[in-house]
């Protein structure tokens, strides 16, 4: 995955570049908005990580300009402004995700990987997600494992749907709260963990291999551990 990090704080940029390279991605760095725009326009990036406050051209204008040029490269906005309005403004400018500073790198990585995957994905979502012997039928609202029905509450279904949509990728707790419950605040408790453990007890209990895995310090991942 090729990333462009547009960040004027040299230390933060160096930290990000190094961290992304360590997990096997290629990360370039632009020091201000104009340079970032020029590099992004050159193309070839899978995801842009853009700081909101940048010299010469701010992050929102950068993304807006790219979108006007019909450049749809997924962009994640990093910002010290973390209020509801700020987030909405960021997404309106054409950002695909918004992460308030300070953030955990694991959170940023998980979100960037989801964005990069979305880019390569076909335009229409498949109607069925399949991970190993676990099958989720989105149209029939039905989940089976090894052919046996698993009965889920509507919210549990959506939780599993989101996890399976991003099978093989780390999904953080805040991503789950955002995408399954559509709230963006920090719940400050392990409220999401309890939901996942309930889901896990229905999906994994009585089976040899676990499907829902906890990724320490990051979140959860659905993956067929039999393989």
């Amino acid at each position, binding site marked *: 995955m090729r990333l462009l990090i547009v960040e004027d704080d040299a230390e933060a940029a160096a930290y990000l570049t190094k961290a992304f390279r360590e997990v096997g991605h290629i990360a370039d760095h632009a020091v201000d908005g104009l340079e970032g725009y020029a590099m992004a326009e050159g193309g070839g990036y899978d995801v842009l990580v853009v700081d909101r406050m940048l010299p010469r051209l701010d992050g929102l204008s950068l993304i807006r300009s790219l979108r006007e040029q019909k450049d749809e490269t997924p962009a994640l906005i990093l910002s010290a402004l*973390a*209020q*509801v*309005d700020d987030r*909405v403004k960021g997404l309106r400018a054409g950002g695909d995700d918004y992460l*308030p500073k*300070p953030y*955990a790198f694991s959170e940023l990585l998980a979100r960037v990987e989801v964005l990069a995957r979305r880019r390569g994905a076909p335009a229409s979502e498949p109607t069925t997600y399949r991970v190993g012997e676990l099958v989720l039928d989105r149209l029939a609202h039905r989940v089976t494992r090894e052919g046996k029905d698993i009965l889920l*509450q509507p*919210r549990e279904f959506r939780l599993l749907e989101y996890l399976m949509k991003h099978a093989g990728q780390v999904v953080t707790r805040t991503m789950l709260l955002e995408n399954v*419950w559509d*709230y*963006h*605040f*920090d*719940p*400050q*408790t*392990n*409220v999401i963990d*309890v*939901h996942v453990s*309930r889901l896990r007890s229905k999906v994994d209990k009585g089976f040899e291999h676990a499907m829902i895995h906890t990724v320490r310090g990051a979140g959860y991942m659905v993956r067929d551990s039999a393989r």
Partner: protein
Amino acid sequence: MTALADAPARKRPKFLPTLVRTTAFKLTAAYLLIFALFAAFVLGYVAWNAQRLITDQIRSTIDAEIQGLAEQQRLGGIRRLVNIVEQRSRGPGASLYLVTTPVGERIAGNVEAIPPGTLDKTGESEIEYARSKEAIGAPSHALVRVFVLPAGFRLLVGRDLEERERLGAVIWRAIGWSLALVFTLGCFASWFVARRVLSRIDGMSETAQGIMEGDLKGRLSITGTGDELDRLALNLNAMLDRIGELMAGMQQVTDNIAHDLKTPLTRLRNRAEEALRSASSPDELRAALDGAIEEADNLIRVFNALLTIARLEAGRISENATEVDLSEIVSGMAELYEPLAEEAGLTLVGDVAPGLRVVGNRELIGQALANLIDNALKYGRSDAGGASTVTVSAWRDGDAVALAVADRGPGIPESDRGRVLERFVRLEASRTKPGFGLGLSTVAGVVRLHGGQLRLEDNAPGLRVVITFPAAATRPSGNWKLQAAPDPVETPALPPPAASTEVPKPARLPST
């Protein structure tokens, strides 16, 4: 407010020019001018008409006399005419007569001198004349008619215009006096009004000056008359109160940040230092770093909560405030926390009437509710060993929409209920549990921003937090036009009637 008392004395030297510049003075002066012009016009019109009337009267009198005299002359010739003229000339009155020979020698009459050439042109004219030799120096005015008799004799009949002139003079004097009076009264009135307004506005300026210089307790004085200046002062005072509250809040935040952020920062620093000094294995270092990150995360949470509260208290309702489905938010939150409650050994019951709508921000209301439920789960465990039930409910309450989170815990003593809404306030009983004391402050901020009310009640036993929001207009906004478009006869769907308040459907959540 002693500064107000000596203010006019200090300002006196430039008081008059200031007065002239006031709006009150300018307005009064303008009205005055308009009124004076109007009065002058009316009086002038009256005067002109009166003069015309009098002139007409004089003219007809002269005509009648001329006719009479001509009749005499026709009956008795010029001699009889002369006799009658002499007879009439002796009588008192304003009538003037003169009979002359064709060359202009006086035969009879009571006029001594007239301007030369008067007798040459027949018909009407206004002339200066004198009745006697003594009066030649101070001639009077008359309206006269000259009439040519047979054989070239001339007859002049006229009438003195003194009456008319006196009337004119009276009217002009009246105009003058009334204008003078209007002007004087107007000046006085505008001076009085302007000075009154000016002194009050000066007072306001003084107070504002004082406040700017640092006397933040200063308030504008209210006269109690309820006039526009009073209303302005009341509003400005309310504004100052609000600003004062915000400043006090800011001050409090600063103090609290100093205390409540420095403590964990110190802890973080100590931990790092301790690890540097004594950790010998990579595992120990790792554990210390994990602890440091956790500490930092907590700091970030406190910081974010403080920023949120500060924004809420600054009172900026966001542009994203739209009509939201409160029923969805409340039941969604109850559902989100229900497994957590169960894990903590409590029962969470949702009792939400459908179709409740308020104007607001879904995120903020959701967060406030999350804080309340979180608190209830943390502190709402029954001490007496009874059922630890947390009830989350929402219902229509007249024009408002209410929601409540109630627990069966120890509750909050009445004396502490106001205090717990403040930032960083944690009651002694809860000190041992995790938390920062910002949850209820956030809730209070959200409620205030939405124009709602927050009440802490005794749930006997336990705490019941009730929030009321103004309900959104009953018309479902947004897509009702779209609904009506394909079939204009179809009425837009209305939300279910308020009957839901009478029979709230208890929607107990699945507990598996």
